[in-house]
């Protein structure tokens, strides 16, 4: 087993939490439960000890009562329980005689596989502090959250992954009633967030043309299919989804990945440093759609309980977006800067070129504007507006705090004239070998 080297202290992303009891095992405290300020369960897993037993290594993650219940009841195994962590965010601690030595936040993509527990199923009889855990997290059948149970039943009947947007409190929200404009804005902003997260899955983090969006239409759109009076709850599902086996050999769905993206964002953005470190995981489109979604909740003064449930795996993800929390998240998003780079290859015709500045317009379905890279500025004068060209473009997309649209900078790094048969026949004599100048400018 490798020893994950943790250097320096990290911010604990889970805030304050209190011990509830020992989940496993009677002989040794390997899985311990805590409760955070929002009443959510925080799990501490003992990995092993190191340095001749001097240091104990642990990781923490946030879960919810649904997934905790599934694990205790033997419906999902220990590894699946850990993998279903909210936001796939894990916090590591090395502890020496109760003193924290070093700590680190980490994400699923970086998680050392050997630290996952085995695929072991347990039963309630094995839970050490069973009474404390059941009563604290309302796991007894007659104490369970009625709305959550109702949503799970509806999702199961519908046979679809289901989002529940439960608008709990706020101006214009009553029992079974909600102001139309508020309702409309919440739905539109959620749908936009879903769409952009879906485009990241299907097309990538770059820009997506209308044609590309149309191609994946049924996988990137959602539909409302149920309303519950509670104060006001609306159930939404993806129109369709793709199923596949992921790199871990597990069954996965496109819509499950989209949900994971959305809940990762919510969990990571509650801490400014974490979302700043992880912003490049998302396209600027997703960040902007999320910003608008959060801004609307914040400015509407509503509290929104937000969950996703998969009736097949029975895994749930949930988050409580209170006014206080969305204010904090919005502030973190506003201070965010992120730049992503992508390499584009397009075929089309030049529309215009400014031989002094190197500014060009290139028509390839849509107009792409930008600058020739510096090494190509001399020979760009040979370009004509009749022939078709294949161009290589380096695109930097920068998220600008406070702006709804990202800044896009295109640098043309190579071009090839196309023959009528479609083959490249004449290339730019000096294809840019160095990073495009826009990359150098932004350092």
């Amino acid at each position, binding site marked *: 087993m490798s020893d994950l080297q943790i250097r320096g202290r990290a911010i604990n992303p889970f805030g304050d939490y209190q011990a509830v009891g020992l989940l496993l095992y009677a002989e040794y405290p390997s899985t311990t439960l805590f409760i955070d300020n929002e009443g959510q369960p925080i799990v501490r897993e003992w990995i092993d000890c190191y340095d*001749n037993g001097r240091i104990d290594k642990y990781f923490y993650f946030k879960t919810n009562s649904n997934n905790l219940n599934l694990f205790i009841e033997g419906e999902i195994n220990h590894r699946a329980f850990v993998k279903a962590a909210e936001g796939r965010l894990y916090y590591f601690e090395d502890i020496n005689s109760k003193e924290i030595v070093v700590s680190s936040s980490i994400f699923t993509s970086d998680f050392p596989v050997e630290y996952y527990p085995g695929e072991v199923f347990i039963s309630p009889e094995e839970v050490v502090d069973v009474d404390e855990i059941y009563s604290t997290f309302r796991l007894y059948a007659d104490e369970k959250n009625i709305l959550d149970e109702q949503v799970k039943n509806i999702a199961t009947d519908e046979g679809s992954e289901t989002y529940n947007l439960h608008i709990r409190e706020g101006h214009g929200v009553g029992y079974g009633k909600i102001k139309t404009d508020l309702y409309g804005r919440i739905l539109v902003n959620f749908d936009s967030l879903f769409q952009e997260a879906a485009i990241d899955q299907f097309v990538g983090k770059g820009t997506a043309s209308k044609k590309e969006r149309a191609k994946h239409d049924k996988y990137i759109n959602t539909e409302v299919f149920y309303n519950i009076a509670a104060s006001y709850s609306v159930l939404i599902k993806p129109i369709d989804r793709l199923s596949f086996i992921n790199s871990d050999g597990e069954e996965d769905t496109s819509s499950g990945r989209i949900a994971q993206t959305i809940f990762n964002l919510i969990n990571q953005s509650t801490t400014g440093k974490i979302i700043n470190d992880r912003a490049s995981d998302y396209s600027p489109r997703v960040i902007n759609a999320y910003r608008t979604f959060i801004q609307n909740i914040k400015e509407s003064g509503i509290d929104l309980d937000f969950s996703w449930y998969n009736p097949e795996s029975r895994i749930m993800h949930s988050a409580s977006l209170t006014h206080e929390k969305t204010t904090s998240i919005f502030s973190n998003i506003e201070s965010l800067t992120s730049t992503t780079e992508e390499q584009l290859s397009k075929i089309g015709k030049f529309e215009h070129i400014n031989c002094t500045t190197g500014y060009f317009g290139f028509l390839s379905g849509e107009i792409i504007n930008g600058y020739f890279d510096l090494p190509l500025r001399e020979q760009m004068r040979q370009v004509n507006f009749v022939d078709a060209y294949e161009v290589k473009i380096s695109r930097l997309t920068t998220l600008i705090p406070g702006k709804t649209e990202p800044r896009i900078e295109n640098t043309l790094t190579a071009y090839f004239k196309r023959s009528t048969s479609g083959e490249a026949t004449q290339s730019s004599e000096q294809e840019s070998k160095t990073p495009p100048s826009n990359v150098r400018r932004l350092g």
Partner: protein
Amino acid sequence: MLSADSISYAQPFKYQAQIDEFKEKCDLNEFHEYEARTSYRWVYEDINDERNFLPVYARFNDRPKSQCAGWALSMYKTPEQAKERLEYFSKDKPKAYLRLGTHTAVGVLERADGRSEPASEKDGHFNHFEYPDQNLAAKFEIVECVVVI
């Protein structure tokens, strides 16, 4: 229900003061003195290692203390059950033996040693509350080395 309070009047346990903190949450009805009960436990190679007969609450201070059973000693009914459980814990945690023990040991628990509960049908585990001034290290002997360091 026979509570920790009522037990303490008859014969106090080694950690009676700590057990008393749980009072009504500590159901000791199923704990009895046994004439001669052969029992197995994880230990370190040196049977006199001070960690061998400490209850988990005494050994692991950061464990949430929520029930009196944390002041009992874990025992198993058979050597196979003790070994299987130790191997189970050590499977994915190569250094776990540093916390759990490396060997299994056997001893015969008698009336004067304390009270223990019936063994779990699933894995043979049971808790044993010691009476004061008992020296289990003198009654137990090594059976097998389970984890080779």
